[in-house]
């Protein structure tokens, strides 16, 4: 059976949504990140858990571009969010 990667917001994340941007922080961390532009749109998309492919295709629809042209950039952004601990990426079936 194929493994499905799901990305979800961390359960303990502190957030505030502003027009076109999102503030994101964690209880124990010192910094609060400001996600703007595409970053804030990706954050909004993650209101429900999604696979990386789903994030890319949703974003491609919104910005009217081909998914392949943004896949790498989106992947690296998701990686940075994961590194900051504000999202979790899990493997499921």
């Amino acid at each position: 059976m194929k493994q499905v990667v799901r990305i979800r917001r961390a359960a303990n994340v502190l957030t505030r949504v502003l027009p076109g941007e999102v503030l994101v922080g964690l209880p124990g961390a010192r910094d609060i990140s400001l996600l703007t532009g595409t970053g804030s749109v990706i954050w909004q998309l993650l209101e429900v858990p999604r696979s990386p492919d789903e994030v890319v295709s949703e974003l491609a629809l919104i910005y009217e571009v081909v998914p392949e042209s943004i896949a790498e950039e989106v992947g690296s952004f998701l990686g940075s969010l994961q590194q900051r601990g504000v999202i979790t990426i899990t493997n499921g079936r």
Partner: protein
Amino acid sequence: MNLDTHVAELVRAVAAFEAPGSSLEGIAVAGDDWRSFLSLVGARRLTGLAVAGLEAGWLALEDAQAKELIDRHRDAMFWVLGLERALLEVTEAFESEEIDAVVLKGSALAHSVYPDPAWRSYGDIDILVRSRDFRKAAATVAELGFRRELPEPRPGFDERFGKAAEFRREDGPEVDLHRTLVLGPFGLWLEADELVDRSTGFHIAGRRLRRLDDTALMLHACLHASLGMYPPLLLPLRDVVQVAGSGKVRWKVLAGLADRWRLRAVVGHALETARDTLGVGLPPDAEMLIERRASPLERRLLDSYVTDKRRRGGLALSTLRAIPGFSSKAGYLWALLYPGREFLNARMGVARSSYLRRWTVPVRWLTKKRRWT
């Protein structure tokens, strides 16, 4: 701040944006008014409501103005998230010390009664604990690196007569540790420990915290709006309207609490002031609480908060009147007139602190009183 100016009217409209029972038409801010408008909206912690109004197209702004407003709101939200982080830290420490803690005001309201927590800014953290836990809670907060701003006037004052102690940490956040909800007689009459029992849950960052239940939340919103500051501030008045319109307040229970704790005048005053200041309609049950007549004593004591008497020592005198028993009254008076040196220095500054200066207010009050009689 004179609320009769045009800018003040605009800010008042912002405070009522999409309030339950409000039917205000959209507003625009003229270039000449912009600076004062932005400054007042920021000072009154109304940027969240203004930004919500902007997004809804209710508040018409030029692009540059909109950017400035969002910048101001972003700063407020950075601060709020820092406070929430501190709140989680403090409540976790309380939990491990087995101290019952109830989150009050800003964060509790933002996450419970507003459509989006970003609508409700706040500047500090307010936590209510039982009187018996107050000292332990203060020590716990101090262990987290918070320093008390103003020491208690005399040992034991906090538990007997105090409302709250303010703590601040170097990285910014301020924690107000409450033993009761308000200063003065009304704060002494209400049974704050019962309010701790009347609490319910809410979530921040996945953690379950305690807040006052919806009825007690309404009571506290009224106390804070009417008695917290004179003249009343717009955001606490908006809180009154917001909680009243939540559809979750048990009005008969609220009336019972107000009767038992002699808060009938306060509740009526807060609801009426909120309704009239923000120009909104209230639920019929809330209107009925405005109509109820309070005792002359309650009304007189309310005057010591909501009139100029407050600035002339009226609050201290009405507190004295409400304290039962001669020895307790004497203890309160002694602590106020002859507080510890540490309190005096913190209150007046080391260079200026003196008992003679401290006594100026009561002496002035007594002379004026004599002139009136």
